[in-house]
């Protein structure tokens, strides 16, 4: 059934409204970041900056702390994502393919961990990491990030693996593939959209985390940007660091957008179509 003109324009208006709703705060942030810091108190309410400036950006990159935090953020998020996706892929494959006792329990536990309120674990984690000398180190953040992103990753990926017809793997075996060849040449290429989706979700989770970063770090040795923002101070004690925070927020949003855009092209829906039936 073809949509009528009225229906189409109705949808168009609805879409625009939603996009405006979602993008307004983003625009506000961008606008703030380009305003002259001294004027933000007076200029703050206007939609466009009355006077455009890069002062905020220059300011934050002059701060050693921010650059440190940015390096920490990128390093910790990328390492956590790579390890978590690799582990989640293997675990999800096993869950989707194998019948073993306690499978249901395993999935249940994984979900339970994902649902567990993270705040309740902060104090014990703090003590444990102090004891293990992991406090304020990269692994000290990577480990909890993996713990909380793995269940989600396993869950999403096992759904993807379940979608891949098992017959394909049998066919690969019959064609003479070893299990490793079957996985690498047949299953993994088909699971790629799922792997990328999971990677995006996990990366965003790690990148945006504030709670663990603020609780398990004490210096810029491992503090990530979301936590570092809280430590921003103005150029003088009379100034609120609004412009600097806005600029930093814009800076840390950019990698996420690039990351998503880069991987989104790989998430081709319906990649498995044509495998089976006629």
């Amino acid at each position, binding site marked *: 059934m073809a949509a009528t003109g009225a229906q189409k324009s109705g949808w168009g208006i609805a879409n625009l409204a939603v996009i405006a709703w979602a993008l307004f705060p983003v625009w506000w942030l961008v606008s703030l970041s380009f305003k002259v810091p001294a004027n933000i108190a007076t200029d703050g309410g206007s939609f466009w900056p009355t006077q455009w400036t890069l002062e905020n950006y220059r300011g934050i990159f002059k701060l050693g702390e921010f650059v440190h935090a940015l390096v920490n953020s990128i390093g910790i998020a990328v390492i956590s994502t790579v390890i978590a996706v690799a582990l989640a892929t293997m675990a999800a494959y096993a869950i989707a393919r194998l019948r073993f006792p306690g499978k249901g329990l395993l999935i249940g536990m994984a979900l339970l961990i994902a649902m567990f309120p993270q705040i309740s674990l902060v104090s014990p984690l703090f003590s444990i990491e102090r004891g293990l000398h992991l406090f304020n180190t990269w692994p000290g953040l990577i480990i909890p990030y993996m713990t909380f992103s793995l269940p989600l990753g396993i869950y999403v990926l096992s759904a993807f693996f379940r979608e891949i017809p098992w*017959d394909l793997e049998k066919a690969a075996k*019959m064609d003479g593939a070893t299990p490793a060849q079957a996985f690498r040449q047949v299953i993994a290429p088909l699971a790629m959209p799922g792997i990328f989706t999971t990677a995006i979700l996990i990366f965003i989770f790690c990148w945006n985390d504030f709670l663990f970063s603020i609780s398990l770090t004490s210096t810029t040795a491992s503090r990530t940007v979301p936590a570092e923002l809280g430590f921003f101070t103005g150029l003088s004690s009379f100034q609120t660091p609004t412009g600097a925070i806005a600029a930093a927020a814009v800076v840390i949003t950019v990698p996420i957008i690039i990351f998503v855009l880069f991987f989104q092209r790989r998430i081709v829906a319906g990649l498995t179509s044509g495998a089976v039936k*006629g």
Partner: protein
Amino acid sequence: MAEIVLDGVTKRYPDGALAVQAVDLTIADGEFIILVGPSGCGKSTTLNMIAGLEDITDGELRIGGDVVNNKAPKDRDIAMVFQSYALYPHMTVRENMGFPLKLAKVDKATIRQKVEEAAEVLELTAHLDRKPSNLSGGQRQRVAMGRAIVRSPKAFLMDEPLSNLDAKLRVQMRTQVSRLQRRLGTTTVYVTHDQTEAMTLGDRVVVMRGGIVQQVGTPKELYDTPRNLFVAGFIGSPSMNFLPATVENDALICALGSIPLDDNHRRALQARSGEGPVIVGLRPEHFEDAALIDSSHPGVTFDGTVEVLESMGSDVFAYFTLEGERATTAELEELARDSGSVDAAAVDQLVTRLDPNTGAREGESLSVWFDPANVQIFDPQNGDNLTAASAQVSTGQHAADTTGRTED
């Protein structure tokens, strides 16, 4: 190419389900053998055990003389065509067909040449660089066949390879599969639940039920002398009519009247262990419009009202409803369940296949003739065909020992 021997092969799934029980089967080199039976009878399991995709619980499997029970599929050198085709969606047709050769580390030029040869045979040359998602069902099916034939394996295994095609294409592909197999002369095990495919394709057919082999034989053997009720009901379309009957005064008394016994029947009835009622089986094609039969031709006739008349051009099917009970045994119930509602109703009904020149009219009475020599007698207790055990039933040599009788 190789001989495949199943020696007491049994499969018990981890959940305890006994899917295949002690199958003994010798598949000759180059033979085209069909595994047929209703859904869930263990055909795929048997095939997967030959392929190496399922472990063998008990028994021995030999391919070309070697015991392969513990060999991985890749070491058995057998190709398989799946019901779902199982084409690799991220590869082109060329890559799909070349995949087994690539894994076998065949050099690129040879792969190219072999794939193109196979594509030629299967009329896929024009589609070699397309992805499976851009192909029609029939083309996908042929790619699946192509992937199997490129590497000249010892045997082909096919699990309902045509069941996803529409009826017309299925018939077309059936012929092509048959031609391909003859041409390559490769041992082939073909699984189907469609008895027409089984009858037309195979050198020999294996009928299975509940994990147990019921009968192995050429299509003609299965048709003429089914060993039991199940095989009799499964082979032939429309299926054989089954009627409960009692033996009285040297005749079988059933809803069609009194059928005089011939020597063969007498021998069969004497040989059986028990007493009591039997089941009489008659194929639809063994009936004829009495008006078209030469009166000198001996036989039994009965009158009935034609309930439904279906003309197929070359044949006419006339359906009658019979009085009295219908024959019920576990086998017949399973057959009815398997074939769905249409044939389940046919258990009540008598189906006859008549000459197109018949004067039969729907709703009118018709005199129908049949030759008692074609009657097969089954033991309701165990389903055994008593007549098959004692002699071959064949048309033509019966006139001497039957007396023509007309029942009204």
